[in-house]
């Protein structure tokens, strides 16, 4: 299992992501955004969290034009698995690899805390080790995590089982920290090979640090 992790100027979760996947037994490589290709043996491409290009203009707006993004798009279009975490999710929506957009949180605060999430659809490689309606406890840390999609787009997500996770309380009752449409915390594309979520599963790998619920999520990508 080879995990390639993208690094833009301002990315700051690449080493956490590397640590998490290596803990699960993967080999990893961090790839600088100026590279025009990604390693050929990549099994999973992760766009890690952080503040690419300082979030200038909009979160993810400038990163989408980095040289490596052409290779990312080609990899995704060939069916390769791509996971965008937090700023990575923002980059993937800006690049048009995932539908919708991420707006400023409704309460205008940067929110950094553990939050419960409910699994909405597990019929995909990312969440297949979990069951629908499972509740996991995963940290969130974002200013622009307020997922927006118009009503037609939302219907499309529902019909195609593209909604992965919703923000809830510990009992699975919807609890929306940031104003996201339908309390959405993560989605995938129609083909179910490009995944994006605002919460950080790579920060939930050790129960002593608050939660190890991220293990079951990231393990989905291991065959």
């Amino acid at each position, binding site marked *: 299992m080879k995990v390639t992790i993208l690094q833009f100027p301002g990315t700051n979760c690449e080493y956490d992501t590397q640590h998490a996947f290596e803990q699960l037994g993967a080999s990893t490589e961090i790839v600088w955004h100026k590279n025009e290709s990604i390693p050929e043996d990549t099994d999973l491409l992760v766009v890690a969290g952080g503040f690419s290009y300082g979030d200038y203009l909009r979160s993810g707006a400038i990163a989408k034009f980095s040289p490596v993004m052409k290779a990312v798009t080609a990899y995704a279009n060939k069916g390769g698995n791509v996971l965008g975490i937090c700023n990575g999710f923002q980059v993937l929506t*800006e690049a048009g690899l995932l539908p919708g957009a991420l707006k400023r949180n409704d309460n205008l605060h940067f929110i950094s805390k553990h939050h419960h999430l409910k699994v909405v659809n597990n019929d995909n490689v990312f969440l297949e080790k979990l069951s629908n309606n499972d509740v996991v406890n995963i940290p969130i840390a974002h200013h622009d995590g307020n997922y927006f999609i118009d009503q037609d787009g939302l219907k499309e997500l529902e019909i195609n089982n593209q909604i992965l996770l919703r923000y809830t309380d510990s009992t699975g009752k919807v609890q929306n920290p940031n104003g996201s449409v339908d309390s959405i915390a993560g989605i995938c594309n129609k083909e179910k090979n490009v995944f994006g979520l605002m919460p950080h599963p790579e920060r939930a790998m050790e129960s002593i640090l608050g939660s190890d619920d991220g293990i079951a999520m990231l393990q989905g990508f291991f065959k």
Partner: protein
Amino acid sequence: MIKAIVNVSLKAGVLDSQGKAVHHALDSLHFEGVSDVRVGKQIILKLDTNDKDAAMADVTRMCEELLANTVIEDYEIELV
């Protein structure tokens, strides 16, 4: 040389939390008669051309590709 002023703001149907917060603050300061507040951003470009049609076409492309996210934002271009 042409100066292009681009105003980017959230679309009408998209909740503008910053606008709401500013509206609330204006209310607290007793500025009455403000029915709505929208917060946007302004991007000012200096272009090395005198051809207004070409400038408009270029800036429109810039807006579509980078300056605005048309999923959630509208843009207006003014050439001066």
